[in-house]
């Protein structure tokens, strides 16, 4: 660019200056907007480190001195945090494992096996993605009620073991990109379909498996409506439900503890984000879909 402007324009470097000016403006603009986007986080962390009197001070302090790290200890004790956290981890891990295995199996069936009615069933599967959750909410509750699962964590992770339309669709699309010759070669070598699935297809599908698993974990960690519907006893609450329960119980006075608890609930998502940002972004662009 620089060399071009030198020789092409009589006004030496003018275009370059214009471009630098534009870049600086964009950089400053994005910088200011980033601060706006980060403000709620900073405000949350700041409040979480204040003693209660300081949360009600105007004008507010932004960097509390000394920082009240004790709030985190109090927050963890105010709600049975580790019980809720372990419930949430159970739901996340069992659900993610279930949807990865089952959706990959079903996607294999749709992508590589020939059977009558395959296309009709696939079309049906895809079209159910349009159905809004409220439509199936009530009957789903009755199903779990007749299975005796209301009040347990099972309704939150068990369905994941039977595939999910969106993940099946995503994996099938990925599988169709795998060369058929690879599978045929394995068949000639005498592999069964299960061996092909397990040893040939799954290792190649690692990128899409990671995306599906990661999104399920974040989705299950964040889910509020599911726990609200199915969890009736406090000892089975997930973090989302427990945090909301804490907030509604104490009626919005202990903001320092609420902010500390919120920070702790966000922290694992932040860690997953830092390590899995590439996969998350790939997943979102792959789908063009919202979670």
């Amino acid at each position, binding site marked *: 660019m620089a060399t071009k402007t030198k020789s092409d324009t009589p006004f030496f470097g003018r275009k370059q200056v214009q471009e630098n000016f*534009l*870049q600086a403006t*964009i*950089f400053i603009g*994005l*910088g200011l*907007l980033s601060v706006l*986007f*980060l403000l*709620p*986080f900073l*405000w949350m962390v700041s409040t979480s480190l204040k003693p209660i009197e300081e949360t*009600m*001070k*105007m*004008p*507010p302090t932004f960097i509390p001195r000394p920082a009240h790290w004790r709030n985190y200890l109090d927050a963890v004790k105010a709600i049975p945090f580790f019980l809720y956290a372990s419930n949430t981890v159970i739901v996340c891990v069992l659900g993610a494992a279930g949807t990865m295995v*089952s959706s990959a199996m*079903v996607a294999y*069936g*749709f992508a590589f*096996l*020939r059977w009558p009615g395959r296309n009709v069933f696939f079309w049906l*599967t895809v079209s*159910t993605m*349009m159905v*809004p959750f*409220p*439509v199936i*909410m*009530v*009957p*789903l509750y009755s*199903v779990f*009620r007749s299975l005796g699962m209301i009040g347990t964590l099972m309704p939150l992770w068990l*369905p994941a073991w*039977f*595939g999910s*339309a969106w993940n099946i669709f995503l994996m099938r699309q990925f599988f169709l990109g795998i060369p058929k010759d690879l599978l045929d070669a394995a068949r000639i070598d005498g592999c069964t379909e*299960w061996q092909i699935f397990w040893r040939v297809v799954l290792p190649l599908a690692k990128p899409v498996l990671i995306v599906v698993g990661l999104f399920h974990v974040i989705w299950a*960690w*964040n889910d*509020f*409506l599911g726990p609200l519907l199915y969890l009736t006893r406090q000892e089975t609450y997930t973090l989302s439900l427990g*945090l*909301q329960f804490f*907030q509604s119980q104490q009626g919005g006075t202990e*903001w320092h503890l609420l*902010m500390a608890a919120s920070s702790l*609930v*966000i922290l694992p*998502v932040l860690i997953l*984000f830092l390590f899995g*940002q590439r996969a*998350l972004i790939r997943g*979102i*662009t792959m789908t*063009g879909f*919202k*979670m």
Partner: protein
Amino acid sequence: MKGIMKDEMKWTGVFVSPWVVGFGVFLAFPVVASLFYSFCDYSVLSKPVWIGFGNYVDLMDDDVFWISLKNTFVFALFALPLGMITSLGLAALLHACALGKSTFRAIFFLPSLVPVVANAIVWIWMFNGEYGLLNYGLSMVGQQGPNWLQDPRWAMSALVFMGLWGVGQSIVIFLASFQEVPVEMYEAAELDGASLWQKFWRVTIPLISPVIFFQFITGIIGVLQVFAMPYIMTAGGPARATLFYSMYLYDNAFRYLKMGYACAMAWILFMIILVLTWTAVTVSKKYVHYQGQ
């Protein structure tokens, strides 16, 4: 040959059966049952009793139903276009940015992953009338901010505003779609003397219109189902100013145990979504540009 076919059927059974069960039990049955219940008097505790169009007729006379529908539409009407414009604009800035692009993208993206409960609680605190950061900011420029979430005139605007915090995923999608636009298109436009502005409106936007359209459709489906955020932040108040459709549906089903009534509401919502989607698809045929057509 027949043996191979039989073998393939056997394996189909192995691979697809989880989904046959999952599809049947967790999707197909609930959809059909929900339609059936919507014509019934049903509280999960006793057997459903057929009452024909009774629930639908009652809904037409239910003022709260209309309030919740109106609120949801008002929210959608502002939140969806504002969200799309914001994310398109931010994605365009990011696309043009040469320095620190991935850091900025990460910062915009992160809030969309925050659990809705934590998100709601942080924003209740942000919107706090006395000690909230927002009103402190307003006081710095000499304005007295309202008590956002407790004020019927402002509660809805507050929810729309905080929704903008979660546009990160659309930003990522739009940014990715900008990168798909072939460079030759811009070079051709430059030869014709197009300015930056013209290149954006005449080249970029038409070429990514399928993505915009898809975001719009999924946006409609999502925004009409908003539940957790108002449920936690305002519980529908003050004076039902933020009572959303899904909240009233949930209340009917699980607080008043009018499950048939709730199913009727759900099917009305489904029909609204289908009609809106169908309309959008029809209208879009004129404006959305698909490659190779």
